[in-house]
């Protein structure tokens, strides 16, 4: 036994030496690609690989920040679809008090997996998608500071997702021995320690991988923003999205390693007989403290970058610069600091000392101020602006509207006496869903539509984009406002059936509210199906964007670096990308679905200059052409209320 251990130790030592030797031979960590013949073994590390490999190999080996951004985005949208279908399942179950669709265990499983999927597999990656693709472009960097670490960070995510969802796949294969985790996303002990299901272990390992991935990404973003900025970019003119990514990365750096440690402790309690969270050890409260010390900054990890997106995009369609840019920057940093001092407001009902509750209440109320400052800045930017109600702009406005409801309902929860009444009810669920769907989701959609011409080279279908917005806006508010009402009625969260809840409120009223929430969820589902269709079809067949400024940003002096890069790419492709006939041939081939010459000349800009758009008669914009476009432009001053009313129609 001792000899075996000695041998094992020796082997580990040798392995360590080999790793050190390999690392020591790497001369240039920033070389473009490890497949290019240079870099890893000390040879030629110049940018020798001019073209990317084709096909699947490109995507498996890429270290280009734009490609990795696209990988993150694809991954996030797949996760969004999975998590969304789980949400639909939850809402279908709750149409009737006795449960409509599933058994309680399966309900618990999809409830758990929905939360984890949306937060860790959709929320964090969709932000990483934007950040990877656009932060280097916005700050004038060639690539991320550590391209290979960037690739590793992404490739940790697919195994993470497989592990998190593993229980669903393995249950039929193992005859129910391994099931999907039913711990809820908070994984509270002692429940999560006592569930013998190995699916919980797989989920914890998957979560751990996503945490490692997020941490690696965060280090990379911090290094990139600090060291890779272009000569003309400094702290005074750094764009707002990069500021929020920098703050978010700092939060990740402090929060995610703590989650990782807590997960390892939980795994050890489950499998190795340790007592970290047992009554003899730290007890259940230790888990809650550790989890929420990560968990609340996680909220800001998810919400700050979408706030940055809206701060970046909203002024572009308001025809004026962001009001109080520096207010937004400093309030972002304030949120970053204060977010670590509010964790115990999730635990007011645990019986902790009231003096400590009072402190966490104070910091939780203080953090509302910088959030409100941002809201006032967005509204002031819109005030008397020359609004263009394009799809990204609609999502920005929807974002602000939802944030007001989601944010204010959160301020009430910061207050100890109110929280004690509403804790663990649907009010909390409604509040945070206003934030995660109504704010984070809307911010992500605003970013997707705004930058669609850049990352696809094509324009989305405007009518479908607006249908997506209105269905999402109505669906979000119907679903989550109904949840706020359910919370006021006293409906406890997480229940698979609610016949028992008739004791707290009339069952008819509870059922009606649940049904309203479910109708809203179905509206949301239809909206998201339209989004996916629009996204995929427009990427494949949408009209090519052949102008560098599809949103007419130059008019208001707001053209940023990523669109300059986009323009440069187009002009470069025209000059050295083969013959003109070849170019036009490609275009006409792609427009073979009935496109005419006039279509090819004009790209549907969904908010570019009206004169251009009024001439456009693309079949992709079958929504009426010039009239509706003119109505959309709400000029400053004048009868804005009338005009905006018309445009809403």
């Amino acid at each position: 036994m001792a000899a075996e251990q000695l041998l094992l130790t020796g082997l580990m030592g040798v392995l360590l030496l080999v790793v050190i030797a390999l690392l020591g031979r790497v001369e240039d960590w920033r070389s473009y690609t490890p497949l290019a013949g240079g870099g890893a073994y000390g040879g030629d590390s110049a940018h020798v690989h001019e073209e990317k490999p084709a096909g699947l190999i490109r995507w498996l080996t890429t270290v280009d920040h734009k490609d990795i951004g696209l990988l993150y985005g694809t991954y996030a949208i797949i996760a969004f679809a999975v998590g969304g279908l789980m949400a639909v399942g939850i809402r279908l179950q709750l149409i009737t008090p006795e449960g409509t669709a599933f058994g309680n265990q399966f309900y618990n499983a999809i409830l758990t997996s929905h939360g984890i999927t949306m937060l860790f597999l959709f929320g964090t990656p969709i932000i990483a998608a934007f950040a990877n693709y656009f932060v280097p472009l916005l700050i004038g960097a060639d690539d991320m500071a550590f391209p290979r670490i960037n690739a590793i960070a992404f490739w940790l995510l697919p195994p993470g997702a497989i592990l998190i969802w593993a229980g669903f796949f393995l249950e039929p294969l193992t005859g129910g021995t391994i099931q999907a985790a039913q711990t809820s996303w908070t994984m509270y002990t002692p429940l999560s320690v006592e569930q013998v299901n190995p699916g919980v272990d797989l989920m914890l390992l998957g979560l751990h991988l996503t945490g490692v991935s997020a941490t690696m990404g965060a280090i990379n973003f911090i290094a990139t923003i600090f060291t890779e900025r272009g000569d003309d970019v400094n702290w005074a003119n750094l764009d707002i999205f990069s500021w929020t990514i920098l703050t978010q990365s700092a939060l990740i750096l402090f929060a995610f390693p703590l989650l990782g440690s807590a997960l390892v402790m939980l795994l050890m309690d489950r499998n190795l007989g340790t007592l970290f969270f047992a009554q003899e050890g730290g007890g259940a409260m230790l888990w809650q403290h550790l989890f929420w010390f990560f968990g609340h900054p996680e909220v800001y990890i998810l919400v700050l970058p979408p706030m940055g997106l809206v701060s970046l995009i909203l002024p572009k369609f308001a025809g004026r610069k962001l009001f109080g840019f520096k207010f937004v920057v400093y309030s972002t940093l304030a949120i970053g600091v204060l977010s670590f001092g509010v964790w115990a407001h999730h635990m007011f009902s645990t019986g902790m000392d009231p003096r400590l509750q009072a402190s966490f209440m104070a910091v939780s109320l203080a953090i509302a101020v910088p959030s409100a400052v941002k809201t006032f800045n967005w509204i002031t930017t819109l005030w008397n602006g020359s609004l263009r109600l394009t799809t990204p702009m609609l999502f920005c406005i929807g974002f602000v509207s939802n944030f007001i409801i989601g944010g204010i309902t959160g301020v009430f929860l910061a207050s100890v006496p109110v929280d004690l009444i509403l804790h663990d009810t649907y009010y909390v669920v409604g509040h945070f869903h206003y934030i995660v769907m109504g704010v984070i989701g809307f911010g992500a959609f605003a970013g997707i539509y705004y930058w669609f011409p850049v990352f696809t080279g094509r324009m989305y279908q405007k009518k479908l984009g607006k249908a997506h917005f209105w269905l999402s806006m109505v669906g979000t508010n119907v679903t989550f406002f109904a949840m706020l009402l359910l919370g006021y009625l006293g409906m406890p969260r997480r229940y698979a059936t609610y016949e028992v809840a008739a004791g707290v409120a009339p069952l008819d009223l509870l059922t009606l509210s649940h049904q309203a929430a479910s109708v809203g969820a179905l509206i949301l589902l239809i909206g998201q199906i339209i989004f996916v269709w629009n996204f995929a079809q427009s990427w494949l067949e949408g009209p090519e964007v052949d102008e560098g400024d599809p949103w007419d940003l130059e008019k208001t002096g707001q053209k940023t670096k990523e669109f300059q890069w986009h323009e440069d790419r187009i002009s470069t492709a025209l000059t050295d990308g083969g013959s003109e006939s070849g170019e036009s041939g490609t275009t006409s081939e792609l427009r073979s679905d009935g496109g005419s010459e006039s279509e090819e000349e004009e790209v549907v800009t969904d908010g570019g200059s009206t004169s251009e758009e009024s001439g456009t008669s693309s079949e992709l914009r079958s929504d009426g052409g010039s009239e509706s476009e003119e109505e959309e432009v709400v000029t400053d001053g004048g009868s804005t209320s009338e005009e905006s009313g018309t445009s809403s129609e």
Partner: protein
Amino acid sequence: MSEKVFDRETLLDLTVNVIPFGILVIFFVGYLLFSPWGFDSVISGIQLAIIAVFGIGLMILTYYSGAAVSKAEMRTEAALEAEETAELESGDETDGEETPE
């Protein structure tokens, strides 16, 4: 010291973080003066430390970020001024092209 690092405009920008700081100060003083659950050196110490740590942290980060932004602005302004001066000095010879620094 602060007048050298921050101009009036920057100080005005930084007031945005003074408001949450002020809220923390009010609570800190309030809990110091009124303690309906009694004073316990450990618990009350933690109670006040939670507020103080994050209030001080907020001010430190605000100061350093404000200083970084302010310095960057000063450098940009200085560079622009130098560029304008160089352009004026070179007159028509440069024909409007950028003068290398």
